C-alpha cells in the first residue's frame, strides 16, 4: 500500500535512473553494444506505435513492415531523386505514413478482426511491391544507398551520435504515446477497443477515431522507417519482409497487450533474441554449419517463443513481472505476519 500511494514519484525516480543509465551506457558500451541499442531504440518506436493501434485502439494490423518500408523508401527516393536533406525527408515520410494510414485505416471502418488483419496484410504486399518496382525501374536492383545526413556541416555517422539521436527519438515517442493515451483521443480508443457499439452510443465518433489511430501510428512508424533507412545507410525491399511485421506483432504480445512498458520490453526482447540465439548456437558443436541456417533457427525460435507466450502468458512480460513481484510481496507479507504472530 505504501508503494501504491507513492507510485507516481517512484516511477519518476525509476525513469530518471534509467535515463541516466542509458546516457552513461553511451560512454562505456562498445561499438557492437551501441549498434544493438540503436536497433532496439528503432524497434521501440515501431513497437509503441503498434501498441497504440492494436493494444489500445484494438485495430489489428499486419502492415507494420510495409509502413516501415514506406518511410525508408520515402527517404531513399527523395534523397536519390532530388537530393533532399533530412529535414525535408523526415516530415515527408511522416506525411506519406499519414496518407498510408488513411488508406490502411479505410477498411477498418467496415471490417473487424480477421478481415481487418488480412486487409492490412494485403496492403503490406502492395507497398513492398511498389518499393521493389522503384528499385528495379530506377536501376538500384540491390537497394538504394543513402549517405549519412549532416547537420551544420557535421555528418551524423558515429554509432554514439546515432545512439543519442535514437534515444531521444524513442523517449519522445514514449512521451507522445503516454500523453496521447491520457487525452480525449486515448480515452476514445480504449472505449472503441472495449466495445464499439457502446462507444458509439456514448457519442464517440468511432470512424473518426479509428482513422485517427491509423494515421497517427502509421506516421510514427514511417518516421521510424525513415530513421532506419538513414541509420542503415541503405534501403532495400528485401529487408521489409512479412517476417518484420510478425516481429512487431511478437513485440506487443511478448511485452504485454495494452501496456506501453510492455511495448518497450517487447521491443528489447525481440531485438536481442536473435543475438541470444546466435550466441547459444555457437556454443553447440558444429557451429560452422549453423551459420548458414542462422536465419532459419531464428524463425523457428521466434515461432516457439510467440506460441509459448500466447498460450502460457497472454499478458506478456509485463504480467510476468507483476506476478513475480506479487509472489515475493505475498511471501514477505506471510513472513512478517508470522513474525508478528511469534512476538
Amino acid at each position: 500500500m505504501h508503494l501504491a500511494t507513492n507510485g507516481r514519484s517512484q516511477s519518476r525516480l525509476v525513469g530518471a535512473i534509467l535515463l541516466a543509465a542509458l546516457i552513461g551506457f553511451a560512454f562505456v558500451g562498445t561499438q557492437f553494444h551501441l549498434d544493438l541499442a540503436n536497433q532496439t531504440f528503432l524497434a521501440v518506436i515501431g513497437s509503441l506505435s503498434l501498441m497504440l493501434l492494436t493494444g489500445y485502439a484494438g485495430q489489428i494490423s499486419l502492415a507494420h513492415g510495409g509502413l516501415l518500408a514506406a518511410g525508408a523508401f520515402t527517404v531513399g527516393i527523395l534523397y536519390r531523386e532530388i537530393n533532399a536533406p533530412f529535414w525535408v525527408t523526415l516530415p515527408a515520410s511522416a506525411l506519406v505514413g499519414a496518407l498510408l494510414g488513411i488508406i490502411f485505416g479505410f477498411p477498418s471502418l467496415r471490417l473487424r478482426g480477421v478481415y481487418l488483419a488480412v486487409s492490412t496484410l494485403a496492403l503490406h504486399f502492395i507497398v513492398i511491391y511498389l518499393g521493389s518496382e522503384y528499385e528495379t525501374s530506377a536501376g538500384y536492383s540491390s537497394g538504394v544507398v543513402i549517405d549519412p545526413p549532416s547537420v551544420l556541416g557535421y555528418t551524423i555517422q558515429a554509432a554514439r551520435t546515432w545512439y543519442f539521436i535514437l534515444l531521444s527519438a524513442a523517449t519522445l515517442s514514449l512521451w507522445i504515446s503516454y500523453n496521447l493515451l491520457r487525452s480525449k483521443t486515448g480515452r476514445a480508443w480504449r472505449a472503441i477497443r472495449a466495445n464499439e457499439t457502446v462507444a458509439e452510443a456514448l457519442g464517440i465518433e468511432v470512424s473518426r477515431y479509428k482513422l485517427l489511430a491509423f494515421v497517427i501510428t502509421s506516421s510514427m512508424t514511417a518516421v521510424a522507417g525513415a530513421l532506419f533507412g538513414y541509420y542503415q545507410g541503405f534501403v532495400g525491399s528485401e529487408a521489409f519482409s512479412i517476417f518484420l511485421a510478425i516481429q512487431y506483432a511478437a513485440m506487443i504480445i511478448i511485452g504485454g497487450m495494452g501496456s506501453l512498458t510492455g511495448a518497450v520490453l517487447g521491443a528489447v526482447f525481440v531485438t536481442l533474441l536473435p543475438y541470444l540465439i546466435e550466441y547459444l548456437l555457437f556454443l553447440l558443436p558444429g557451429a560452422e554449419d549453423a551459420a548458414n541456417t542462422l536465419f532459419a533457427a531464428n524463425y523457428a525460435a521466434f515461432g516457439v517463443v510467440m506460441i509459448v507466450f500466447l498460450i502460457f502468458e497472454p499478458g506478456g512480460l509485463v504480467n510476468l513481472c507483476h506476478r513475480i513481484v506479487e509472489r515475493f510481496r505475498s511471501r514477505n507479507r506471510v513472513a512478517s505476519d508470522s513474525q508478528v504472530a511469534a512476538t
Partner: protein
Amino acid sequence: MAQLAVNVVVLGAIYALVGAGYVIVYRVSRVLNLAHGELMMLGGYLLLTTATYLTLGLVGAVLFAAFLSIIVGVLVYGLLMRWMTGQAVLAAVLITIALGIFLRGFAVLAWSAQTQYPGKLLAVANAPIRISEGAVISTVSLVILLTSIVTYSALFAFLRFGRWGIRMRACGQNPLLAAQSGINLHVIYALAWAISTFTGSVAGILVSVETGISNVMALVGLKAFPGALVGGLDSLIGAVFGSLIVALAEVAAIQYVNPLLSDVMPFVILVVMLVIRPWGFFGTREELDRV
C-alpha cells in the same frame, strides 16, 4: 489464347485446392489459418522425405505423405489451436502466424533452403499432353486439376450428407448449441484441421512434384487465400469461383502488364474485394459481424 486459358484453369485449380483448407477451418471454427501456406509446404517436404527414405513407388509415396499430413493436422489442433478455443480472434490468428514462422524455420533446418525435386526422385515423367491447337497441359497439372475436382465433390457430399459433415456444419453455425446437443467440439475441430491440412498438403505434394519444393511454396499457399476470401470465406463453391478469378487476374497481369506483379495481384484483388463486398461473392453477410 488457348494456352492462357489452360494456365488460368491449372493455377485456379491449385488455388482452389489450397483454398479449401482455409474455408473448412474458418467455416467450422472461425479461425483464419495463416499457417496454411506453410502446412502446404510441409506436405511437399513430407513427400520428399518419404521419397528419399522409403521405396513405395510414386502412388505409394504420395498416399503415405498425404496420410502423414492428416496426423500433422490433428497435432496442430491438439497441441496448439485447442488452447485458443474461445479466445480472442487476434490470439488465434497470431498463433497460426507463429506456427507459420516456426515451420518456415524448421523446414530450412530439416531440409535445407535449396529447391529440391521429389518428382525426380520418384522418376515422374510429367509429359506434356496436347489438348488443342497450341495448348498443352503437363500430366501433373492434369492430375492437380482432377484432384481438385474430386476433392471438392467429396467435400460437398461429406458436408451435405455425411453424419460428421453435418456435425461440422452445426459447430460452425452455433458451437454452443452443437455442444449442448452432445457433439464433441474438440473432435470436430480436430477433424476440420485434419481435413484442411490434408487438402492443403495434397496440393503441396502435387505442386512439389511439378515444380520442386522450397521455402517459396509457403507464399503460393498464402496467395491462395485471396481466392477463398473473394468467393466468401465460409463458402466452398465460392472458393472455386474466387480462385479462378484470382488465377485469371494473375495470369493476365503476368502476360500483359508486368511479371513482377504475379506475387501482388492476388492481394490487390483481395483489397478491392474487401472494400466493395467484404463477405465475398457467395459468403453470408452476417459473417462480418460474427468475428
